[in-house]
């Protein structure tokens, strides 16, 4: 390991351990690490974005790509939010952003996320090749319909609607459980990654010199 790799391992280990001390309880070492990491990250992204503005706007404009002045000025207008009397001006660039966003998304959303998904939900039952696939299709269709009925609040959940909403709630809970399990395993991955760093890079590589 060269000097910079060793320094990186020490700094990395210092901050990883500082964050891990929170598992015991809140302490000054953790708070220092937390604030240093947040500060460093913000500084990195501020500098990175300044570089982007220079490379992607100012330099091309200076070379004659004058059309880029329009988005550049719209970007600058966002800062009017910092002044109460002129904050209304920031609504113009916001409107452009929202308009472009909706324009780009709407067609794909309607077909890809609504029509095609509904089609897949219903058609799968009738086009299934095996009994297992057909059963799967039925479960998805029942889950979709009953989960939607759970969100109908304009009628009291009694009778058929109440029964459907109750079944829908079970499907929603299963779905949220699956999402939460994914989230939990993701946290584990992050933890394991840092443990591998501490063991392989810091302890074995830097302290013991055996990696």
């Amino acid at each position, binding site marked *: 390991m060269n000097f910079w790799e060793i320094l990186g391992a020490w700094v990395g280990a210092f901050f990883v351990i500082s964050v891990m001390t929170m*598992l*015991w309880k809140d302490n000054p070492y953790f708070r220092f690490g937390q604030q240093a990491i947040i500060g460093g990250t913000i500084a990195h*992204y501020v500098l*990175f*974005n300044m570089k*982007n503005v220079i490379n*992607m706007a100012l330099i091309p404009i200076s070379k004659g790509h004058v059309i880029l002045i329009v988005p550049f000025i719209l970007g600058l207008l966002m800062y009017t939010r910092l002044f109460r009397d002129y904050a209304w001006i920031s609504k113009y660039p916001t409107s452009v952003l929202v308009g*472009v*966003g909706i324009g*780009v*998304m709407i*067609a*794909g*959303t309607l*077909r*890809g*996320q609504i029509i*095609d*998904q509904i089609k*897949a939900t219903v058609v799968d039952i009738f086009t299934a090749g095996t009994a297992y696939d057909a059963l799967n299709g039925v479960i998805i269709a029942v889950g979709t319909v009953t989960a939607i009925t759970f969100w109908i609040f304009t009628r009291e959940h009694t009778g058929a609607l109440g029964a459907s909403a109750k079944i829908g709630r079970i499907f929603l809970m299963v*779905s949220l459980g*699956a*999402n939460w399990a*994914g*989230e*939990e*395993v*993701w946290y*584990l*991955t*992050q*933890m*394991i*990654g*840092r*443990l*591998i760093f501490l*063991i*392989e890079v810091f302890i074995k590589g830097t302290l013991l010199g055996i990696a």
Partner: protein
Amino acid sequence: MSKEEKGSITMWEKLGNIDYRWLYALSLVLMIIPILNPLGLPTIVSEPTKGFYNAIVDLPPGSVVAVSFQGSLALLDEQEAQFIATWKILFQHEMKVIFYSPESDGEIILNDHLGKIVKPEDYGRVYGVDYVRLGYAPLGEPGEAAFSTNIRGVFPTDIHGTALDQIPMMKDINDHTGIDLVIFQHTACTSVEWPIRQWVVPYNMKCITMTLGCCGPMAAPYYPKQILGFLSGSGMGTELEVLSGNPGPGAVMSDAKNFGVLGLLLFLVLGNLSYLGKRFGGKE
């Protein structure tokens, strides 16, 4: 209330009030064991991973693959196994690869990993002929839409400042019609629908995606009709390593994860026992 009842209630309550730091300590020990002594636990390859792999290997050599790389430095542990295995498969099967980054971190990871951990020259791949890096553009989903219709409008040059027209591989590639497969590496759940909206719906493109573990349930509804396969978290990255015969960082991670989750499961069981015991154990 009898003495027995009092005793049982105390037991359920004690069970529910175990210091959470025991969970941390147990999980840490369970995670460290496989890191020190890899166990090589078996990995079952799921259907979405097979779909992901087949989408690449079913293409003839020389096909053009666009990689929209939203890597994140903070999420590297979750993503590394996925993209390292994917890049190796792409180069092994002689695809022509276009790398571009809609996230700033993506370029930093590409700088660090492509050429150091995965070396295209080891597979006989030449820059500009077999693969190209277009760099970072902070354009989000509208940028994807623009890229699919006019690549040069978003990236007039590659990362070295060379005009795309002067790069042999890019001469005839101007838009989606020159691309055979799009691979998305997502760094947030909110971008999982980008390929559906900007590539699949308008152009019926072949798409596969890599997501974080928590975003898998959001990608699943689109498989296999709209996306041909997907990887969710480092676990499915490990599956791809196994399926493609490219061992990587996923193996140790999976062992540790399988062990680490045992502590969590144990405490889930204890917590539920405590809840059920207090509810049905005759507290009133």
